[in-house]
Structures are given as C-alpha cells and as structure tokens.
C-alpha cells in the first residue's frame, strides 16, 4: 500500500505530462506552468527540512564538542545573521542598498567568485596530469585541446603566420569547434535524449522504483 499509491501517482503524472504536450485545450495547456509553480512552492517548503538538518548536525557537533565544532558555530551564526537581515527587510529584501544586498556583495559574491576562480588552477593541473598520450584516443583528446588552445591566443597565429590566410591556427581551431565538435555533441545529445525517453518510461511504468524507498 505505502508503495503502490506512490507508484500509481508517478505513472499517472507521467502520462498526463506527456499527453499535455499534444493538447492545446484548457487545462492541459497550463500544466507545465502549473508544475513549475507547484515545484517552486514545494521546494520552498522543503528547504525547511534542509535548514533544520543543517541546524541539527551543527548543534550536535557543538554539543558533543566534536572536532571542528567552532566552525559549526560560525556556520550557524552566519545563517542566522543572513535570515534575520533577510526577513527584516521584507519582500524587497534584495534591493540595492539593503543590508542583505551588502552581505551579498561583500561576503557571498567574493566567496562565490573566488571558488569559481579556483577552477583556473584545476584546469592547469588536470592538463598536466590527464593529457597524456597513453593511447590513440587520449592522443586525439590531447591534440584537439592543444590546437584549440593555441588557436585562441595571438601566439597561435604568429606560429602559423607562414601559412596562407584561411589556414592559420585560429581558423583551424574554429573549424574544429564548428565541425568535429558539432558531430560529437550531436551524437551525445541524441543518445542522451533516447536515454531519457527510456529511463522516463521505466519510471512511469513503475519498473524503476528505488527512489521510493522500501515499505
């Protein structure tokens, strides 16, 4: 029973949302909008579960004085600071000039963009480590990456300056992006979509049910 009802719900919802695509008639024409509204409301409710979990784990850590409990204190204080400021600003919480906006600009945003920027270092270490001519496939990966990188900076055209115009490295890089890259992306995209069709069908038919848990 606890498992059959959810399976039924998944199946019916799946069929309805396939069918709505082909029916312009009310109410089917609204279904996808409704779903996105409903989902955002459910997600907004569910974040209470997440936040409570974050609180619970941090408090347990602090209470037991487990290693790193001090950091848990910082997390909770920052969370409370952000929520108190955010709720006290009202619905225009993110307007330019509010305290919430200040915290966003000077705390959230530097942290976020720096974490993103770290990626530059990892691109370098991955290039050093992973682009090795272990076999033919790896060599192709390496050569394609090398040529495209070379073609993206002025040095590439300097090195290939002796070639007739139209065959310089920057153009070669563009060609690789335009043709072989398109071919690969297309094959991947078609494959992915067929994979989605079949795994969606498994979910709708109730063959795949591990996400629903046990009885």
């Amino acid at each position, binding site marked *: 029973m606890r498992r059959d009802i959810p399976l039924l719900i998944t199946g019916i*919802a799946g069929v309805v949302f396939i069918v709505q695509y082909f029916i312009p008639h009310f109410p089917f024409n609204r279904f996808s909008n409704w*779903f996105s509204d409903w989902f955002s*409301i459910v997600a907004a409710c569910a974040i209470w579960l997440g936040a409570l979990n974050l609180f619970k784990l941090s408090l347990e850590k602090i209470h037991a004085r487990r290693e790193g409990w001090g950091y848990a204190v910082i997390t909770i204080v920052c969370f409370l600071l952000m929520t108190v400021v955010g709720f006290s600003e009202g619905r225009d919480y993110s307007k330019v000039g509010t305290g919430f906006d200040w915290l966003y600009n000077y705390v959230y945003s530097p942290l976020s963009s720096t974490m993103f920027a770290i990626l530059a270092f990892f691109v370098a270490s991955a290039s050093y480590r992973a682009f090795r001519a272990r076999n033919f496939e790896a060599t192709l990966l390496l050569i394609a990456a090398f040529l495209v990188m070379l073609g993206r900076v002025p040095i590439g055209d300097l090195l290939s300056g002796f070639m007739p115009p139209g065959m310089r490295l920057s153009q070669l890089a563009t060609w690789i992006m335009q043709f072989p890259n398109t071919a690969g992306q297309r094959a991947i995209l078609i494959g992915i979509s067929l994979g989605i069709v079949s795994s*969606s069908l498994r979910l709708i038919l109730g063959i795949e049910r591990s996400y629903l848990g046990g009885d």
Partner: protein
Amino acid sequence: MESGLMHHVALWLAAFLTLGIFSFLYRDNTWYKVCEAIFVGISAGYWFVAYFWDNLYTKFWVGVWVTPMADRPDDWYVLYVGAALGILMLLRLVPKVGWISRWPLAFIVGATAGLYLVTYFASNVMLQIEDTVRPIFGAENDAPIYEIIGNIVVAVGTFTGLIYFFFSKEHRGAFGRAAKVGIFFLMITFGASFGYTVMSRMSLLIGRMDFLFSDWLKLIK
C-alpha cells in the same frame, strides 16, 4: 556610495574571504575552514530567505491572498495544490506519517519524467536529426573545400558516435570499427571543448586577481 570607513571594511572583508578560499590551493587550513563555514552559513541563509520571499510569499501568498480578485488569473486557485504538496512534504517532520511525503515526491518524479520525455525528444532527437540531414555539397560546387570536408565530418562523426552508444550489440567486426571511429570523434569533441573552456576559466581568475591588485591593494590605477 558608502561612507569611506564602510567601504574600507567591505574591501578588506572581501579580500580576506578571497585569500582564504585561495589558501585551500596550498592546503586545507584554518583560514579556509573559517571561510567555508561562513560561506555555507551565509549562502544557506540566502537561499532560505530567497525561497521564502520569492516562492512562498510572492508566488503563493500574494497569489491567493493579497492580489484583488479582479486582477487574478482565472486559474489562481491551483496554487493551493502546490501548497498542499508542500505541506505533505513537511509531514516528513512527523515520524508517524512521514511516509506520506513520498506522494509529492512521486508526483514530482512522474511529472518530470513525462515532461522530459517529450521535450527532449522534440528538441534534441528530432531537431538534431533534422539538422544533420543536409547536403554535403551543393549544385554550384561553390562551397569552400573546408566546408565540404566539414560536412562530411559532421555526417560521419554523428553516425559513428551514435554507433558507439549502442548497448545491445557487441562492438565487433565492422560495427566495432565504426564504434571505434565514433569514440575517436567523441575524444576530439572532448579535447576541443576542454581547450575552448580554458579561456573562460582563466577570465574568472584574472577577474579575482584584478580585484586584489587594483581594488584592494591599489597597485594598478
């Protein structure tokens, strides 16, 4: 903008956080851990507040309560369905009836599966196939040679790439060789995308360095 002092505090705070995250590259350390804890707390708080005001308040509350009847869309009442699903989800907090939260979950999974099935089929399978079907060269033969080679490459690459993804046929003989060519194309694709992305990623680092050198340290004008 802000008063001088506030601006300085802001700059130093941002610089402190920036360097703290960068310090992780050397090794895990207290400074990074502090920044990480701040980041988790501040960002979780941010989303908590944003979800509340943007979704619960603006979407639901305003939709069913604040907006005058005359201004509402004719299907405003369906917002209650969303709220009902949300409440069922929150029942998870009550151990005895927590299992009911599987219902909204099952609904979301089913609807997502249905939506993705048709939209991906339409936009990716159909459209990509339609795009691949094109002449390799035209009547006037005026297409430049690189474009003709390119068109052949796209057709062959897409074809063999798809063969690689076949699950139910053994990759042997001619089929196996085609699959092998397919994986070559995939590898070129991966290499090219990787190389192409380097510039984007570097820009982000340059942006941060620019902040440290010019906004904070004022080393350059």
